[in-house]
């Protein structure tokens, strides 16, 4: 299941992003324009209009609602025991505290007191048990179902305590629980209504048009800095941009190409922020088949492609080069751009060593939506220089899912991988790309059963380094996350990790 939502990026979260408070340069960039102007005298009852391309199919994130529901509801309408912040860290929300037993198999969570659902019911341990069981249950289409598999039982000794027992250690449990909405166990209809604990409650949903959230006056935590949030849905990026230009919306959540930025960039009425996404453009080989089962061939290809030039072609001055599958916001990031740098001569030498001095021919299955066709053409022209012929076969997102993801019937493909902390895919030899290195499988498996986060980080860093050295795939670049707002609006998340868009901190001044 993780794949269905995780991989079909077109339908799911393409704009996972993360706060870059970590790097000084980035922090400077952020604060520069937007934050200062609007922050001081903002309107506490302002209505914030958000423009988005991702209307949810329904209102329940375990019912295949798509990434749009996470954008609109995560931490706005529903809260979890934990939250994945825009900076990529995990913080406690409905869990006020938790304890882990020495063997790591029992987690005891203490709940925030005095929390009420929007319907007025108080939050109890039973609601938490109900909510977790909903996600791991047979009807759940949640992409996180698999990562919660170690849970064997959930007990509720009293109204304020939840005890979760595991079959094996799972150091990522709090992180994984950040994907679990806590819903009222008495709620009837969660696909067209809601009953959460968040700072906003659902006011109105007009399918195909808008979804309105109103500030909840009984919210247990800090009050939002605005009165109302309205998500306006568009099906076309140009219409979305025009809506911002004409003032129909205050902020748009994801920009798809750098060229539409020209209208906003040198305009004092707008603020353009660049965050780091978790969306990686991947040139994946089928590591099971000739010639891609040869590490030398894969390394040669990695070295034959001028990724810097490619990134510039697609994103202009935006985006980041990553030498591996791990973006700088994951704790196990290391800069691996130097492992297989652009070097045509050494690419040729490696090909010769692998017995392909005269090159070879392969088919690149290319999804038919931007940017893949243009990336495919770039790869074709780059690999032609080392004697490799690429046949581009354009396929639809559905074909990609059946032919490549399910049937593994391909030589090489392109795909954008959107998820946060998804290096675990390389620990699964049955995954579509078929990378099978027992060392990596073991590292990823044992990382999850680590006793400390340091140990987990060390193991995943090692796994990260190994996949890069094996050139398991060719990681072309990391998408930027670009959010554009009117200049009088600030306080929105810039990274939108896992397509979340926390609205409670958005401030709008009277201009």
């Amino acid at each position, binding site marked *: 299941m993780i794949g269905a939502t995780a991989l079909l990026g077109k339908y799911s979260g393409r704009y996972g992003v993360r706060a870059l408070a970590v790097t000084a340069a980035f922090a400077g960039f952020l604060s520069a324009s937007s934050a200062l102007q609007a922050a001081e005298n903002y309107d506490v009852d302002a209505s914030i209009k958000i423009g988005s391309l991702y209307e949810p199919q329904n209102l329940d994130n375990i019912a295949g609602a798509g990434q749009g529901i996470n954008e609109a509801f995560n931490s706005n309408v529903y809260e979890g025991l934990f939250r994945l912040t825009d900076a990529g860290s995990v913080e406690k929300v409905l869990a006020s505290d938790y304890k882990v037993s020495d063997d790591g198999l029992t987690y005891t969570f203490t709940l925030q007191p005095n929390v009420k659902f929007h319907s007025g019911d108080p939050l109890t341990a039973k609601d938490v048990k109900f909510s977790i069981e909903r996600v791991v249950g047979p009807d759940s289409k949640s992409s996180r179902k698999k990562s919660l598999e170690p849970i064997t039982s959930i007990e509720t000794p009293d109204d304020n305590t939840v005890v979760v027992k595991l079959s094996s250690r799972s150091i990522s449990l709090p992180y994984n629980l950040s994907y679990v909405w806590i819903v009222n166990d008495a709620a009837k209809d969660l696909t067209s209504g809601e009953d959460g604990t968040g700072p906003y409650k659902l006011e109105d949903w007009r399918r195909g048009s808008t979804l309105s959230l109103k500030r909840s006056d009984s919210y247990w935590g800090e009050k939002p800095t605005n009165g109302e949030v309205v998500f306006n849905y568009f099906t076309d*990026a140009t219409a979305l941009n025009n809506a911002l230009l004409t003032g129909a919306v205050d902020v748009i959540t994801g920009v*798809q*190409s750098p*060229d*539409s930025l*020209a*209208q906003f960039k040198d305009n004092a009425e707008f603020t353009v922020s660049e965050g780091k996404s978790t969306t990686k453009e991947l040139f994946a080989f089928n590591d099971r088949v000739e010639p891609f089962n040869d590490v030398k061939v894969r390394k040669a290809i990695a070295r034959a492609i001028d990724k810097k*030039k490619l990134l*510039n*072609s*697609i994103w*202009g001055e935006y985006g980041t080069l990553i030498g591996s599958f791990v973006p700088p916001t994951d704790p196990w990031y290391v800069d691996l751009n130097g492992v297989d740098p652009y070097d045509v001569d050494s690419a040729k030498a490696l090909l010769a060593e692998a017995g392909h001095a005269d090159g070879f021919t392969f088919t690149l299955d*290319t999804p*038919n939506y*931007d940017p893949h*066709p*243009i990336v*495919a*053409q*770039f790869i*074709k*022209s*780059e690999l*032609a220089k080392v004697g490799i012929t690429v046949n*581009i*076969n*354009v*396929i639809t997102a559905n074909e990609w899912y059946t032919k490549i993801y399910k049937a593994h019937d391909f030589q090489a493909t392109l795909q954008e991988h959107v998820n946060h902390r998804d290096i675990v895919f390389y620990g699964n030899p049955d995954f579509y790309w078929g990378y099978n290195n027992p060392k990596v499988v073991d590292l990823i498996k044992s990382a999850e059963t680590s006793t400390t986060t340091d140990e987990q980080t060390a193991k995943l860093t090692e796994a990260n380094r190994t996949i890069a050295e094996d050139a398991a795939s060719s990681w072309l670049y990391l998408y930027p996350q670009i959010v554009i707002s009117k200049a009088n609006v600030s306080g929105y998340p810039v990274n939108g990790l896992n397509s979340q868009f926390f609205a409670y901190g958005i401030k709008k001044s009277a201009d």
Partner: protein
Amino acid sequence: MSAADELTPAVVTAARKPRWSPTFTIGLILVGIHVAIALLTLFWTPYDPTSTTGGRLEPPSFIHWAGTDRLGRDFFTQIMIGSRIALIVGAGAVAIGAAIGVTIGLLAAFATRFLDDALAATLDILIAFPTLLLAMLVVAASEGASLWSAILALGIAMSAIVARLTRILAKRVLQNDYITASRTSGTSWPGVVVRHVLPNIWPTLSVNFALQFGIAVIAESSLSYLGLGAPPPNASWGRLLQEAQGTVYTAPIGAIAPGIALVTLVIGINLLADGLRDIGDPTRRISR
């Protein structure tokens, strides 16, 4: 008899000595330019079409006449190759459409009442079916989209229109007394087709082929725009338009240039078809 004697030579002379037709000439020039460019690309283009050395979205200049695309490829080179692809698709689709359409049309014209009705109904249904949808089905049925699947799809879609026209025209010819006379004097049915039917329906058919050529060029662009035509890096105008969509504000030339190329070729073909009709159809000329 004497009136006929006077009329006949006039018609014959006119048919042998076509009047100068401005539409035909302009059409011929426009199509001629595209044909010349298409032939030229077989031997020479300003740049290697896959060379990415130009820089991202350069504006038009003396170095790159139509600027460059996102990958830094020379856009004028792409447009030139687009001419070749458009003409190949047009010619290929017309060839397939004509071969299938004329055969089925003649068959229907000669067939018994029942078979004729059945064929006519089938053709009406096929014509009512949107060309693009039919083309998408053919592309979906074949192993991935290619230039040839697009040509085949458009050819099949076109054949229904050609078949219906052929059937009506051939039926009209077959009603004539001289067909009966020819049959009575021992000419076989194939002989009748070659000697009487085809020469009589050819002028109208050829005009129709020319019009269909233009429609095929546009349809191929639509298919490529949707990603169902020639796969990249074939520089089909439709695909160039599609790729230029995201950059239309910053580099409008990317949308304008393939647009101009497409329009000039299709207008040229339509003018050519008009001119052909003026020249080839004696009834129209006399009526002027």
